[in-house]
C-alpha cells in the first residue's frame, strides 16, 4: 500500500462528501457529508506525514479534529433550531435570505 492508494481513497471520499453536500437536502446528511470531506483531508495529511516522515501532518489532523468537534456542536445546534422553528430538516425550506 503506497501513497497513491491512500490519495485515491481520500480523493474518492472527498468527492463523495462534496456531491453529498450538494445533492442532499436533509441538514443532518449534509452535516455528515461535511464530516466525510474533513476526514478525507485528514487521511491525506496522514498519508503524506507517513510518506515524508514528518510529524507536521499529524499535528494538523489534531487541529482539524478539534475544529470538526466545534463545528459539530454549532451545526447540530443549527439543526435543532431549524427544526424548532420550521418543523423541518430540509435546507431548501430555509431560503428567506435572498434578494
Amino acid at each position, binding site marked *: 500500500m503506497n501513497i497513491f492508494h491512500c490519495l485515491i481513497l481520500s480523493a474518492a471520499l472527498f468527492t463523495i462528501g*462534496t456531491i453529498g453536500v450538494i445533492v442532499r437536502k436533509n441538514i443532518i446528511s449534509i452535516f455528515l457529508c461535511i464530516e466525510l470531506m474533513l476526514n478525507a483531508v485528514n487521511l491525506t495529511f496522514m498519508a503524506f506525514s507517513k510518506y515524508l516522515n514528518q510529524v507536521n501532518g499529524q499535528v494538523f489532523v489534531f487541529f482539524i479534529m478539534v475544529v470538526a468537534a466545534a463545528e459539530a456542536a454549532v451545526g447540530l445546534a443549527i439543526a435543532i433550531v431549524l427544526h424548532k422553528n420550521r418543523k423541518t430538516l430540509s*435546507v431548501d425550506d*430555509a*431560503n428567506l435570505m*435572498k*434578494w
Partner: protein
Amino acid sequence: MMDYLWLIPLLPLMGSALNGIFGKRFPKPLISAIACGSVGASFIIAVAAVTRLLALPPVERHVIDTMFTWIASGDFVAKAEFLLDPLSAVMLLVVTGVGFLIHVYSIGYMHAEDGYYRFFAYLNLFMFSMLVLVLSANFLLMFVGWEGVGLCSYLLIGYYFDRRTAADAGKKAFIVNRIGDVGFILGILLIFATFRSLDFTAIFSNISGDPSRFPVETGFGILTAVGILLFVGATGKSAQIPLYVWLPDAMEGPTPVSALIHAATMVTAGVYMVVRCSAIFSRSPITLGVVAFIGVSTALMAATIGLVQTDIKRVLAYSTVSQLGYMFFAAGVGAFSAGIFHLVTHAFFKALLFLGAGSVIHAIGGEQDLMRMGGLRKFTPTTHATMLIAALAISGIPPFAGFFSKDEILWSAWVGGHPIVWIVGLATAGLTSFYMFRLIFLAFYGSERFPENARQHPHESPPSMTMPLIALGALSIVGGFVGVSAWMRLGPNQFEKFLEPSLEFTRTIQSANPAPGQEFIFAVISVCVASLGIYLAYRLYVVNPAASDNLARRMHAPYSLLLHKYYVDEVYDAAIVKPVVVGSREFLWRGIDVDVIDGSVNGAATMVQNAGSLLKNIQNGLVRSYATWILAGAVLILLYITLSQ
C-alpha cells in the same frame, strides 16, 4: 526715485473699496468726498511725478517703479512694475485730470439716483484699472488693467440694470470686448514665445537692436502676426470696424460714464496700446496698412451714421467712433505722436460734449431726442457756450484744440504718401463739423420743441456740473497749443518732441521734407471744408428747418440706410448671433448635452441596473446552490493553477 508711483492707482482703489463696502451707510457728501478726493489726490501726485520727470534730461525720462515680482516661473517673469515715460505721463495726466473733472460733475448729475455709492465705487474702480493700464511696464500688467476697465465698463453701462436695454447693452459691450481680448491675449502669448519676455523696454530694444532678426517685414512675418493680433484687441476696446457695435449701445449708461469711459479714456486704450507697441507696428507695413485702412473706414462710416441720428448721445457716440478712427489712421500712416495728440485734445472736447449733453438732458428732465429740444441757449447759457467751444474744437476750427491735432493727422497722411486716406479723412472732417453743428443748432437754436411739462423746468445745471464744463472748455481752447505744428514758426512741435523718448525704438516712417508753404495750404483746405460743414448745417437747421426734412424725403433710400446704421446690427444678428444661438440650442444643448453627456450618464446607470437584475438571481437563498458556486470557484482556481504551471 519716484517710488510713489504706485500710490496713483492705489488711491482710487481704496476709494472704491471704502465706498463699495461701507457706502450704503455713508451720507452722500462723504461718498462724494471719498470718490473725488481720492482721484484728486491721484491727480496731484501725478502732476508731481510728471514735474519730476520733466526736470530730467529727455534721454533719462524713463522711470521704472518696481513693487514686487508678481509671477516667476522658469524664464517667465512678470513683475508688478510701473513705467513713467512721456507717453504714460500724457495718458496719466489725461486720465486723472479729466477723470477728476468728471467725478466732480457726477456729484451734481447723479445726486438724485439710487445706488449713489455704487456708482462712485465703480467709477473709482475704473480709475484704478485705467491707471494700471497706462502705467504698467509689461504686457501682463497692462492686460490686467485692460480687463479691469472692460469689467467697469460693463458694470457702469448696466448701472440702470432694471432697464432691460441697459442690461443688454452691458452684456453686448462685454462680449464684443471679449472677442477683441482673444486677439490681444494671443498677441501677448506670441510675444512671449518670440522674445521670452513681456517687458516693454526689453522687447522693444530687442527689436530695434537686432535688425537682422527683426527686419522691416515686407511679407507676413512674426512682427506682422503680433501686430495684427494686438490690433484685433485694439479694435475691440477702441470700437473700430468690425467690433465697434457695442459703443453706441453703451450710451445706456449714465452720461458721466459715457464721457469718462466711452469717450475720454477707456476707448482710447487701444490707441495707447498701438502707440506703446509702435516699435512692433512700425516694422510691419502690412499691419500699418491694416490699421490705416480700418481707421479711415471707421472714421468715415461712423461719421455718416452720425449725420442722421436723433438721440443726442448716439450722435456723440458715433462721433467718438469716428474720432478714434482718426487716431488709428494717424498711427497707421506712422504719425504716432499725432495720434496721441488727437487722443488728448479729443479727451478734452469729447468729454466736454458728453458732459454738456448730460447738462442738456438734465435741464429738460431726461429727454435725449434732439427733435424735442431746441432754443435751449437762453435757458442754459453756460452749457451752450462750452458746447459751442467743444463743437468748434472737434470741427477743427483754429485756434481751438482739435484744429492742431486734426490738421497734424491729415498732414501726416498726405506726407506719408496716402492721398486716398487724406481725402477720406478730409471728407470725414467735413461730415464731423456738419453733424456736430446739426446737434448744436437742433439743441440750442430754433423753436422750442420740448414737451409742455418740461417747459417750466429748463434750468442751468448746478455749479458742480458747470465748473467741470468751464474747465474742459478752457482746455479745449488752449489744449492744442502744446502741439503747435512746426510750420507756424513757433519752434518745433513741442508735443512731438516731448514724446520722442517713448518712441525711441520706433522706426521713423516719415522723412519727406515738403516745401515750406505747402502745409499752410493744406491747413487752409481743411479749415475751409470744416467751415463748409458748419455752413451747411446752418442753412439746413437754422435758416430753413423744413429743408432738412425735404432733403431726407428726397434721399429716402440713403437716409434710411444711415438711420439704420447700415443694418450692421441686423447683419451681425443674422450672421453671428442667430447661428450661435441656434447652434447652441439644437446642437450643443439638445445634441451634445442632452444626448451625449446626459445619455452616457443615464446609460451607465441603466447598464448597471440591468446587470444587477440579472446577477441577483444567483442569490436565491439556497445553501446548496451557494455550495455549488463555491465548488465551481474552487475547481476553476485549481484548474488555473494547474494549467498555468
